[in-house]
């Protein structure tokens, strides 16, 4: 059973790492530190392949994995979107809805030490419709 990652996942090298996993690890520079990651396209195997699909980290690469995870393509896509948000620290239900709608892409620290959202492609349209709705309410 095999699955292929659809998101970059940080690797934990403190314990046993199978040889076929080890060869797929890449080191990425994250703010001056090199961290090991499994890049998008990494192939997981066995029970872990099924777990990765169920967790939303990967997509099945063979029929056995697809059957073992017990999810249809729509459910798999939904799980992947859910995990994408979790991995970005987006846990607030309202923010998750905004992320799904393309209004925000995540969070970032502003220079003054405030958290701001990273604007998504639909951010401006969302703000505009919110203002319009407010104006209607004020009339």
């Amino acid at each position: 059973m095999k699955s292929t990652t659809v998101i970059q996942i940080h690797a934990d090298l403190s314990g046993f790492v199978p040889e076929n996993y080890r060869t797929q690890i890449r080191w990425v520079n994250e703010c001056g530190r090199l961290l090991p990651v499994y890049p998008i396209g990494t192939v997981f195997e066995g029970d872990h392949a099924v777990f990765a699909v169920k967790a939303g980290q990967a997509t099945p690469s063979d029929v056995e994995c697809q059957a073992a995870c017990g999810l249809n393509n729509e459910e798999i896509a939904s799980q992947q979107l859910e995990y994408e948000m979790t991995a970005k620290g987006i846990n607030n239900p309202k923010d998750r809805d905004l992320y799904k709608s393309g209004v925000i892409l995540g969070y970032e620290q502003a220079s003054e030490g405030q958290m701001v959202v990273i604007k998504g492609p639909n951010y401006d349209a969302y703000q505009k419709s919110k203002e319009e709705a407010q104006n209607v309410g004020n009339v």
Partner: protein
Amino acid sequence: MAKKILGKGTILAFSVSSTFTAIPMIISIEKTGEGNQYYDSTTLDGGQYATQENTSINKSPEISAEFFYDPTNAVHMALKTSLRTPSTTIPSGYTSPGQLIRLTYTDSGPLVENWNCVGLQIDEKFATKDGVKSTAKFAISGGPT
């Protein structure tokens, strides 16, 4: 200049088959108890005030996370599996068998801390006016890496 950083966006992940897997639907995270260990060194022939001395040993923290619990979620299920079948592997850099957990702060760095979790407790709370919530308490051995 020191900057305020917010809790929103903090990520708690734990190691599953050599991947750091983020825990979904977290409401809050607490890290408590990390500190110096000290003892009362007051003697009968001492001065007016009681004295204390550092043992040169640091206490590890306990990390806990409250989250909406979904018994069908693969990551929540993996947490339960970790509790029922604790790891017997000693992570490199540590002396006790455990499983690494990773806390990623929201600063621009960001700061990333790995801790060796040697024990896990998961409590669940069911209430009429609330979703089912769970609290996972991670007992930590050693320092951060």
